[in-house]
């Protein structure tokens, strides 16, 4: 009896349904005009940038925030691809954490290590890395 039952169940247990197509083309691929939506961590980084950095470094990171003209030396152009190439993630995070004075540059860039968490600084670096791509072509 059991053998019959096992026989009946066997094909069921061994069955393999063809896999449904899982890989879908992302919706963004259809409309190449819109930039792809940022990852959540990068979005958090953008929020931090807008809140703390934009006043001096500017919306696009070009160093043209409304408070920039008060500062000598001027804030760094963070969207410059050359500058970004030279600096590692760790170096950027270090400069944010310890400020200009901490890395031997202008004290007008304050240290943010006591204000922002290490996680927030990492998110910020992730966002900074997206800036060169958003840069407006020089006119």
């Amino acid at each position, binding site marked *: 009896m059991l053998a019959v039952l096992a026989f*009946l169940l066997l094909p*069921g247990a061994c069955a393999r349904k063809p896999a449904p197509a899982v*890989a879908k083309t992302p919706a963004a691929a259809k409309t190449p005009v819109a930039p792809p939506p940022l990852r959540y*961590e990068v979005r958090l980084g953008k929020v931090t940038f807008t809140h703390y950095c934009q*006043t001096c470094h500017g919306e696009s990171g070009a160093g043209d925030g*409304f408070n920039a003209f008060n500062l000598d030396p001027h804030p760094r152009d963070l969207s410059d691809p050359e500058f970004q190439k030279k600096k590692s993630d760790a170096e950027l995070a270090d400069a944010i954490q310890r400020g200009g004075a901490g890395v031997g540059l202008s*004290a007008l860039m*304050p240290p*943010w290590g*006591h204000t922002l968490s290490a996680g927030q600084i990492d998110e910020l670096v992730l966002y900074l890395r997206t800036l060169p791509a958003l840069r407006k072509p020089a006119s």
Partner: protein
Amino acid sequence: MPLRRLFAASSVLFLLVLAISPAKNAFRSYRSLQRQFRKLGSSRAHSLKAAQGYEARPVAIQQIWLRDFENRVDRCTTCHLGVADPLMAGAPRPFDLHPGTPHTPGGFDRFGCTSCHGGQGLATTQGDAHGSTADAGPPMTPPVFIESGCGRCHLSESVDGAPVLSRGRTLIARAGCYACHAVRGQDAFRSEAPPLATLPVKTGGEWVKRWLKDPKSIDPNATMPNFHLTDQAIDELSHFLFAAQVPKELASRIETAGAEPAGSSANGKKLVSESRCITCHTVEGKGKGTAPELSKIASTASRGWLLAFLREPQAFNPRTPMPRYHFTETESRDVVAYLEDEFRDFDAPKGILEPLRVNQTLAENGRKLFRLYGCFSCHDPAGSGSEKFGPELDGIGDKRAQSLDFGRRTDLVRTLPAWLAAKLESPRSFADGLKMPSYGFSADDSRAVTTALLALGAQSVPDRYRYAPPRKPALLPGGPVGSLIQSYRCLSCHEIGDRGADVSTAPLTYEGSKVKRDWLVDYLMLSYTLRPILEERMPVLKMPREDATQLADALQNFYLDPSIPEDPFAARPASDADPVEGQRLYVGLGCRGCHILGSSGGYYGPPLTEAGKRLKPGWTYAWLKGPQRWRADVRCPDYGLSDTDALRLTAYLETLGPAASSAKPESAARGVK
């Protein structure tokens, strides 16, 4: 023999029937998905051991069981196998890693999946779980409304990390939805709509008719919605409004004020600009506030009403956020003269402010309309009884699409969010005879409001999951000081504990520990701009010295924070070298990047030129030790200063400003009664 054969056949048949259910289970798609996941995992694994771990995963239903959260069982992870697996970043659905949110990763075991996403947690087929099959329970929340999930547990109006939900809740409160619709926790809501008793002596029949036709076309800041009234209904309602009994005392005030001679428009212009009206009002759309647009105010209200209102706004509307300015009789006349010269609608017909001759029959019909459209909900909440005019909104987020009346809207997808969005956009389009007015929400606004509405569940979540930010006690004195705070409407801009509004960056909760008394008295009498980059500025309220002194003393005595030391130098007396060292720190830390001192410096923080005159050293010290403690989102960085350095910097800032020459300016200020 035939019997035995029959028995054998029926046994086989019986076994076949028995096998149907296990066979069906064996063909469930999650099994093949789990086998795919094994392969995917072992191909992505970094070590042989990890790969073997993926290969050894049993094919079985996975579930998160939340015993203390309505006994929820979420089996979503049966197919969504990689939600908490960092190796699955970028993997194809349904194996991909869940994007990071405040609750993920790390919160899966506490919150499950359906608490945010909705849908049917118990189901193990895609159609049933996502709610896309016809007879399934409520479906998943579409991703654009995902923040509605946050709102089930987070009950405050503003929720960190959920901007769409917060915006939706703000819009609901501002539109006054709670005046007609009951919602848990909003029983105390009162609309800011003005009482209508003085309307017949405030404005004219033509203006009222134009307003009723479309309030937002007269004033873009209007919160009153468009009721799409017919011309006849508008006429009847106007007659009803002009039939109101004007309180005698107010009527005579307006009449006397109207008979006063005209003032000097030139002086009025000066007064209006220093009064900072655009902190709350807009003028031709300029200004961030939401108080009535002023550019056509003289074609809205009569001169007598403007004068009488300006002199004591709260007598006309006890709930107005408008403070009472202490203009002299002449000054208020000058202000109104300027408004009459410049702030009028030059295209309006001449008689726009002519009162309406009341026809009693029309007025009686208007009275019925006033009740029919629920106008009393906002304009006369006391007279409406305890019943709300509209249906209650609790549970609207859990409504089944099948239970909604789509009426004429055959164009809509039959889902709850689509119904809500359409209801907000054109409320009367579903059937004839509906009464809900339209609010002119933009697409973004209606998405935000829909998100907030979807958060209104039928039941409140268990206490353990409910989150409201900790209450901050608010000390609101009675007596003369209480009436001053009321009359100057400090709470329209400043916070005290969790009361009041966050228009000003300076909460009054610990103002007494922060600023020096003498400075405060001067500032209240003649306020000036502390932070030039802000558009919202303290108005010059023309406060008489007695009022300013009384308020300053109250703030100095009661609005204190025990963690701010009265004298930070108590344990370690300041030395002569401290201010010098402090100045060195000021330069070395780069404070000038944001603060103006003397003639140079950044344009971001408040100028520090008179810091020693304005700020108490205890406050300066407490601020320097951690600015974010006092205002969580403040941009002033925490420099992690040592106690000694913070004291040195405090000692330096104490020396700034003309009145800070004495060594202990504090004691002098404290002695004043």
